[in-house]
């Protein structure tokens, strides 16, 4: 049977910008698109708009609902200008994330050392709640 749900796959963007958000080691909340409770994040990608730099061995991890569920801690060496990175969800059921509450932000966790520059866009594809 047909359902009343929309037929489009949804996209949510979240953009971390050092100039706006700072880069201290720790958790940085980055607001973006709203994703409703019950949605299923299936896939997406990360684009490094501006290279991530640091005086130390900085890492960046990204979280939607639980630690590193979008991007595992990734060293600055992999976050170069125009780098494209896979998300943890790669279009398989085993890696998909079902949200148990609404989110409108991602947490970018800077590890080991502070950042001195960087701009990262996370693009998340999701299915609307199925119940």
């Amino acid at each position, binding site marked *: 049977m047909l359902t009343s749900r929309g037929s489009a*796959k949804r996209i949510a963007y979240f953009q971390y910008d050092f100039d706006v958000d700072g880069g201290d080691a720790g958790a940085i909340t980055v*607001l973006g698109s709203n994703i409703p409770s019950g949605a299923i994040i299936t896939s997406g990608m*990360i684009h490094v*708009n501006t290279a991530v730099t640091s005086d130390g061995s900085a890492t960046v991890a990204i979280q939607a609902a639980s630690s590193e569920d979008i991007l595992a801690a990734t060293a600055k060496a992999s976050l170069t200008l125009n780098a494209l*990175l896979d998300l943890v969800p790669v279009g398989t059921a085993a890696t998909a994330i079902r949200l148990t509450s609404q989110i409108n932000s991602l947490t970018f966790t800077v590890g080991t050392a502070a950042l001195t520059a960087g701009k990262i*866009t996370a693009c998340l594809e999701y299915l609307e709640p199925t119940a």
Partner: protein
Amino acid sequence: MQNTSLSPVKCVSYCEYDFSVDGGAVSAITVECNPIPAGAIITSGVIHVKTAVTSAGSATVAIQALSSEDILAATGKASLTLNALLDVVPVGTAATMIRATSNITTLTFTIGTAALTAGRICVALDYFVTA
């Protein structure tokens, strides 16, 4: 923290090669597509053969957006049958994605080995805009 101004949609560009319109000589045939802006990231897509490709010889078809065979490697007519669905080179992984370094308004269909005598091929490319 910030809200992103990026539009929460994934875009699709369509391009349709039609033998009856574009001809089928062994050559590079330029076919208009829905514009893809510079900076966009082509993540995936699909090729749909709407009319079987035929040829008196062992014709091949390759498709290019920015560089040779970056959308479809040279493919024999035997694979281009009515309603065949083919993967494009970008298959949703960071390693295969294409970042458009300039506006894309056409795709190039390269006919190899022998001329075509029929065929209609639709290409749909999914892309994100992250800037």
